[in-house]
């Protein structure tokens, strides 16, 4: 009886064995773990730059002569052939599941990235949680050749500082494969991608003869029309963009009061709501922004404990935020003519019938779309002290 049961189970188990996808054993020390991938456009196809971990260098705790990463550069007619061609120069199997950041050269992005995205979504080894950044005014190859401080692996640096700046500098967004593809596919919204720039400043290096004066910095956002890069938002415009879509992290904001008192705020939370409205088939969008801030520093003698002063500060902040929003709107609407805010989508959701008519001519309609702002600001906390430190009490 038991034997019969066992016999019945064995084929079931065996069938299960063959029902899985691909699996194969590979030891960690036979893998070349790719952390960062750079793609540039060349005349005959793509130029791939791969940053691969060098575990030997990482294993030695301090003072290693070897570099923490190894670069592999290869050309190919398409991405896959270029990636595979690296096998001819690498003793280890390329392992792509841990790619954190994909850097796209600016000239490539201007020509369109649809083909690349299809590859990344289709290929099983790539996950969808890595971030895309654009090498602004340079090539991906150049960006990946810069070694970075603090984080020994440059790819990890790119990844962490992107997340960090999204959280504490509020105006760069980290965008992964799924976000990017979704905003390309959706009607009435166009994607943006953060840009990365090579900067060189004197005074970075402590040593005289050191030549790592070049650093990488995230600057601005690249604006897309469909899958092609068409222009850049400046820092102020990027700020406005984030206020409108309600995705500002812990950003810094400051206002001047009476030309001499500078008050610095930290944005705690900023949310926005886009509401479409329609009058005589003429759509318009209301953007409601709710921002709460904390006071971080008061330079001057303004008594921020007084309600009337706070009211003035609020008004100043509201004006300032509105200014940023309008700047961003103007740039996107008039200059670049790309609906990065997703206004079209908002109208689509509320007035599906109207959208059918607008859909074909949205690119021209969008430029004329009136946008109204309603900004409410709340000052929450004043930090550990209340009145400005050096304010003299009136006697």
């Amino acid at each position, binding site marked *: 009886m038991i034997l019969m049961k066992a016999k019945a189970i064995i084929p079931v*188990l065996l069938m*299960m*064995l063959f029902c*899985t996808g691909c*699996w*194969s*054993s*590979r*030891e*960690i*020390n036979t*893998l070349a*773990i790719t*952390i960062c991938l750079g793609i540039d456009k060349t005349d005959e196809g793509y130029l791939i730059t791969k940053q691969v*971990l060098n*575990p*030997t260098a*990482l*294993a030695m705790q301090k003072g290693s002569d070897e570099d923490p990463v190894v670069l592999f550069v290869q050309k190919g007619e398409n991405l896959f052939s270029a990636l595979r061609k690296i096998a001819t120069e690498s003793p280890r199997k390329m*392992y792509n*599941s*841990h790619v*954190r950041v994909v850097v796209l050269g600016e000239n490539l992005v201007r020509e369109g990235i649809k083909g690349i995205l299809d590859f990344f979504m289709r290929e099983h*080894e790539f*996950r969808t949680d890595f971030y895309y950044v654009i090498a602004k005014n340079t090539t991906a190859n150049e960006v990946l050749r810069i070694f970075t401080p603090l984080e020994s*692996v440059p790819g*990890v640096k790119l*990844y962490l500082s992107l997340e960090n700046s999204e959280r504490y500098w509020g105006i760069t967004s980290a965008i992964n494969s799924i976000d990017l593809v979704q905003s390309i596919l959706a009607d009435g919204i166009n994607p943006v991608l953060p840009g990365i720039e090579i900067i060189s400043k004197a005074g970075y290096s402590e040593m005289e003869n050191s030549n790592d004066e070049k650093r990488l910095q995230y600057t601005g956002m690249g604006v897309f029309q469909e899958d092609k890069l068409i222009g850049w938002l400046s820092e102020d415009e990027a700020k406005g963009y984030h206020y409108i879509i309600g995705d500002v992290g812990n950003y810094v904001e400051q206002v001047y009061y009476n030309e001499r008192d500078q008050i610095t705020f930290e944005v705690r939370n900023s949310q926005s709501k886009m509401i479409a409205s329609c009058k005589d088939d003429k759509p318009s969008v209301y953007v409601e922004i709710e921002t709460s801030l904390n006071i971080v520093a008061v330079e001057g003698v303004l008594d921020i404990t007084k309600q009337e002063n706070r009211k003035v500060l609020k008004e100043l902040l509201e004006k300032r935020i509105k200014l940023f929003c309008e700047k961003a709107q103007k740039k996107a609407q008039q200059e670049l003519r790309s609906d990065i805010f997703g206004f079209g989508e908002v109208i689509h959701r509320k007035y599906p019938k109207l959208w059918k008519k607008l859909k074909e001519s949205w690119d021209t309609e969008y430029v004329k779309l009136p946008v109204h702002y309603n900004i409410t600001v709340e000052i929450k906390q004043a930090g550990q002290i209340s009145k400005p430190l050096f304010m003299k009490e009136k006697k």
Partner: protein
Amino acid sequence: MGILGRVFRRKSKKQIPQSDTHLYRDLLTNITRVKNDFGQSDDLTVNSFKWNDSSPSICASLYIKSLVNTETINSLSEEISNLKIKDNKSRQALPFDVLRAHFSGVRTLKEGDKYIDLYADLLSGNTVFLLHGSRQYLSIPTESTEGRSVEEPSSQTVIRGPKEGFTENINQNILLVRKRIKSNTLRLENLSVGNLTRTAVGLMYIKNIAKDSIVREIRDRIKKIETDSILEGAYIEEWIKDDRYSVFPTFLSSEKPDSVASALLEGKVAIFTDGTPYVLTAPALMVEFLHSSEDYYHHYIIATMMRFLRFIAFFLTLLVPSFYIAIATFHQEILPTPLLVSIAAQREGVPFPTFLEALIMENTFEILREAGIRMPRAIGPAISIVGALVLGQAAVEAGIISAVIVIIVSITAISSFAIPNYEMANAIRATRFAFMILAGVIGIYGIFIGIIVLTLHLCKLKSIGVPYLTPIAPWIKDGNTDTFFRFPFWVMKNRPFGLHGDDKRRIGGEYTVRKNKKGNQEFR
């Protein structure tokens, strides 16, 4: 030995003539027969009893010197000489009734007329009186109770709670439990198992709390055991186990009388075996192997926390090495990147594949553990030095194995020691190797196949007809006040696990301290 063997064979089909099995009337014939049957063994002592030096022997006392208590024998001799003074009539023979009357009410008496019973009595340490002219014998228990005194158990230590442990003496062990349950419903049945060893086996249960069917089943199974020797409770366990191929223990062995008492109160049956300090309780459930008697001596929140730790340790022991193998050789993508980077850095230069590395280190640990138990106590510290330094530090520094695997093995090892029952810990450690092989061949997929098979196996197991995973599968509501959680005593109203007989309730009447604070007096 020929006759002995024949006499002790239980299901002997040969009909032995009555004259051969029963005592003779003649005293000397009887004595010679006994002496011959014991092969003139030197410790068989025969004292003949005469009225005076010239008269013939009318009575003889027989005992095996090594088995009896000398003091008891001495006092018995005094009593016999009292009889001599009292009954000084110089008779030819001492009537059986007189002797019996002399002792009755003072000593526990047993009489019989067969050699087979006589030998059994002699061998259990009784003194046997043979009378001239009588075909009966009288036996008086005089066995020696010497042995280890009650000590702290060596394998089940507790911080709080009774520190008495069982000894090798079955009567002592029964006493230790009886002391804890002073109820006339506590029942004890004596059985003897093993054709040669004639080991005393005690079956203890509480009437009405234990299910009759379970008691009957255990009794029947023990009676069916046909073997020449029972030297430890494990013999019984192996003979009467439900699934004899399973590595998982289905009898809970305990060294602590309080654990046995609490098991009895839950409706279990305790099996005492003479000669071992381990008492078996059955039916035993999977979850109970992860319970400790200390769970009930601490606050219920603390006890629940400790229980959770043990459940976590259980899974760590079982799965940590296999998950490491699977992730390091198949599923590198599920690690966070920084962790992968540090593992990759550690693995650099290690000559073995991860699976082999894990297998080597796990085996090394098993050898260390085994050596730690077997070797003389005095060289105990040596093994820890060798183990910690040579195998841990030196091997990592030499680059033969990675530091990660040392951490993995240590976690496994320490977790396995957190499982309170040693047999269960062994079973898990053995299963772990199967999981490691599965992980080494097909990765996490293999581990999950293993988990499915293991779960099916555990569901199939039974302990004396009770499903092993009770009260989880089948789900029993009352049992779950005491499986993963240890509920407060006032919540555990019914006996757990659904194993109990008619007496289901544990508590009755009012609680001493009520929830309603008004009812309680406040003193200031």
